[in-house]
């Protein structure tokens, strides 16, 4: 069946052919992730797609790989329209996507994984001999120096990443999309990856698409580059016609518009300067994926952490909260040594954390909002040191819920509330802990604008009324700019430790800092 499909769209691979997007738009509610994107990928070319967080790169990739159906517009393969409802249909049409995360099962051998789902058969049994032979050839092509009977778990991460490409080649893919493939690789492995990409495009006449946010990489390997910002194509052309300056400008987006948005947010709400004391000091923190991070946080300060995906922002917060361990460096909280070994420890020292993914590790779905809120501080509501005083617990939770203006049935399960209200409940949980340090990871992710502004106001009033410091991680520039006092930039698991005054930043130079790390 699959074979038939690929034969259907099969054509002479030697001549020039194209894959194109025609007026693609993708809307999520009121947000336009892609806005009328028309783009042509030519055979024999490596096409780089660059853009900032939320520029639409991933959405575009998801449409091409069949994971999303566009709201309007379509895709043409060699001038004939194609559409996918399921990812396997994209595969069958010859479009393969190599993701940053490894997807092949590590308990299989090389030949088993390369032929997974389309095993060769002879007389009803597996044709191992032929599959081993083909696997050996592919391994040679992708420069993986290993026997085809090697189990994947015995290979290095970069070899496994290369095998993902091998699997795409083996499926006779004509188009291979790479989603930030270099993140986990060493420099030598990156150059190997690039030479394989060149071979695929220039010698075998495939289309290779590289989504990446490292401009130097994109410019070194790609033949053609397209820059996306706010779901629109800002710049597209041959590499040698594009300067790095114009590319950076295109990625950073429309300066005037962004700046205007920032100004509308209340700049007047500057807090009165009061005597600030040192709250948190981190010196040379390092772990498996973080290096040499130092920072200072004062009482009453809201520090924003900004960086691209995978820059270690969330990892840093989770390390501070004791969820992840660190190997180097020291942390001082309120003058005494702070060694976060577990969230339990962090909580006992007055550190509260709001998770980025409220469904995954934020709330407990089988409990009510009140129970969720009071879970970390149940010891405050005991009688005779043993029994829980439910009345006291509920009434004090209710006070906070009311203050936060949580709407919905609060006696039912928390899952009955809307996303914004769930987030407010989790925020209430943090407040109830009366923390000295509040760690917020994307506190307004996936909630509507009304709830967003309410949460901003809450953070601001909290800092005003209590002796508390806040570290906020966000990938939304407007969010960082509207509520923080200072901003630190994270890049590749580290930070220079330099704090920028928020009042001196705008969306454009924030993005620029994250992109170039020159701060």
């Amino acid at each position: 069946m699959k074979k038939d499909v690929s034969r259907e769209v099969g054509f002479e691979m030697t001549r020039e052919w194209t894959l194109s997007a025609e007026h693609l738009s993708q809307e999520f509610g009121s947000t336009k992730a892609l806005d009328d994107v028309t783009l042509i990928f030519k055979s024999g070319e490596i096409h780089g797609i660059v853009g900032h967080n939320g520029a639409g790169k991933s959405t575009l990739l998801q449409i091409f790989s069949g994971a999303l159906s566009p709201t309007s517009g379509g895709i043409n393969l060699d001038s004939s329209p194609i559409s996918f409802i399921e990812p396997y249909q994209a595969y069958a049409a010859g479009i393969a996507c190599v993701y940053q995360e490894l997807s092949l099962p590590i308990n299989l051998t090389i030949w088993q994984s390369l032929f997974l789902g389309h095993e060769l058969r002879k007389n009803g049994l597996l044709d191992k001999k032929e599959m081993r032979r083909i696997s050996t050839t592919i391994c040679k092509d992708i420069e993986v120096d290993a026997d085809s009977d090697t189990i994947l778990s015995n290979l290095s991460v970069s070899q496994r990443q290369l095998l993902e490409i091998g699997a795409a080649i083996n499926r006779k893919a004509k188009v291979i999309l790479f989603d930030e493939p270099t993140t986990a690789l060493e420099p030598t492995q990156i150059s190997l990856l690039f030479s394989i990409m060149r071979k695929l495009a220039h010698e075998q006449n495939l289309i290779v698409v590289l989504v990446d946010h490292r401009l130097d990489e994109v410019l070194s390997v790609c033949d053609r580059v397209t820059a996306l910002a706010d779901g629109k194509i800002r710049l597209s052309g041959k590499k040698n016609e594009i300067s790095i300056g114009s590319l950076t400008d295109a990625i950073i987006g429309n300066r005037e518009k962004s700046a205007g948005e920032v100004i509308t947010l209340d700049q007047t709400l500057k807090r009165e300067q009061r005597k600030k004391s040192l709250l948190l000091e981190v010196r040379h923190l390092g772990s498996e994926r973080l290096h040499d991070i130092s920072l200072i946080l004062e009482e009453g300060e809201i520090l924003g952490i900004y960086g691209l995906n995978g820059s270690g922002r969330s990892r840093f917060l989770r390390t501070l909260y004791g969820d992840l361990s660190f190997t180097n460096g020291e942390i001082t909280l309120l003058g005494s040594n702070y060694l976060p070994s577990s969230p339990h420890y962090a909580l006992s020292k007055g550190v509260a954390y709001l998770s980025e993914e409220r469904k995954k590790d934020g709330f407990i779905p089988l409990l009510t909002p009140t129970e969720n809120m009071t879970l970390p501080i149940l010891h405050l509501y005991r009688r005779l040191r043993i029994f829980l005083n439910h009345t006291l617990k509920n009434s004090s939770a209710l006070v906070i819920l009311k203050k936060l203006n949580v709407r919905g049935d609060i006696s039912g399960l928390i899952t009955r509330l809307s996303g914004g209200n769930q987030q407010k409940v989790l925020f209430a949980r943090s407040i109830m802990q009366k923390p000295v340090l509040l760690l917020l990871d994307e506190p307004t992710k996936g909630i509507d604008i009304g709830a967003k502004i309410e949460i901003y106001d809450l953070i601001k009033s909290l800092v005003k009324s209590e002796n508390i410091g806040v570290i906020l991680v966000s990938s939304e520039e407007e969010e960082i700019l509207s509520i923080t006092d200072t901003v630190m930039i994270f890049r590749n698991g580290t930070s220079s430790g330099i704090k920028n005054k928020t009042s001196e930043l705008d969306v454009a130079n924030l993005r620029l800092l994250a992109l170039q790390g020159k701060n």
Partner: protein
Amino acid sequence: MNIKKFLNEASILIVWLILVGIFSLLSPNFFQTTNAVVLLLNGAIIALITLSQSFVLLTGGIDLSTGAVISMTGIVAAVFMRSGAPWYVAAIVASLLGIFAGVLNGLVIHYAGIPPFIVTFAAMGVASAIPMIITRAESIKIADPGFLWIGQGKVFSIPVPIILVVICAILSTILLKSTIIGTHIYALGGNRLAARLSGVNIMRTTIFVYGLSGLFAGMAGVVATSRLGVAYPQTGTGNQLFYSIAAAVVGGVSLFGGIGKIRGAMSGALLIATISNGMNVVNISSYWQPLVIGLIILAGVGFDSARTLTKNKGKRGRSVIITTKIKGLVGKSSTREGKK
């Protein structure tokens, strides 16, 4: 809404009444005071191991060693008395041994990170072999009247095991409803990751729950041995484990963790005890019992997963859309960052 809730909880009692009716029709011996006492005494042991199982199930775990611990603790109590220890010391040692076995389970589950299913499966083997090794597979007769009182005695003409079960059930209810650890047990079963980030001490909760499970199994071992007047090295290796899971699941304790009440679990124990007793009374071969109980577990779990599915159905569809939406907006790797 409340009527629906009431029916949901009452449905098990309705099934029970129907069963009582059927068994009474099939045999005149069923609806007799003497049989009711036998039913309740057997039911007491089932109720204790159901309590044992329920706490573990609530955290999303399972204890397969429950039955084997019954045998082990019963034999150890008998051996202690044979060597001259007073009956109450024997009973306490047996219960402590149950706790010890459970705590060991909990420690391995937490620190080695091995799934509860595997750990307690191994513990089942170990705990069922120990009494066989100690006694060379022979049973030990018990004569101490004090020990026999636990399983055979009466207070105000109420059998002691039944009093014991009522006390345990009440204490368990209070534990779950009105203590911190009770809330933590539900939280752990509901979302382990979120519970951890909320400051729930996962290690302590896990060990507590398995220790408690061992305690109830140990008590069941003492009661069973005392009731029979003989310690058999294979008392609990028969259908006991089976009964404990069936009763808890039929009583509304979710195999997936986080849902369930002691009240429900106790109704489940009564139902299973009635089925077991009724089948004996109407002379159905005991070989049929595991078959029937097995089907009951399947039906109970089927109902449980159907409930979880329909509950999440609308939401699951929506959450997929939301996550793709978020992914599309902020890029994919932000979600990965946390995982690696």
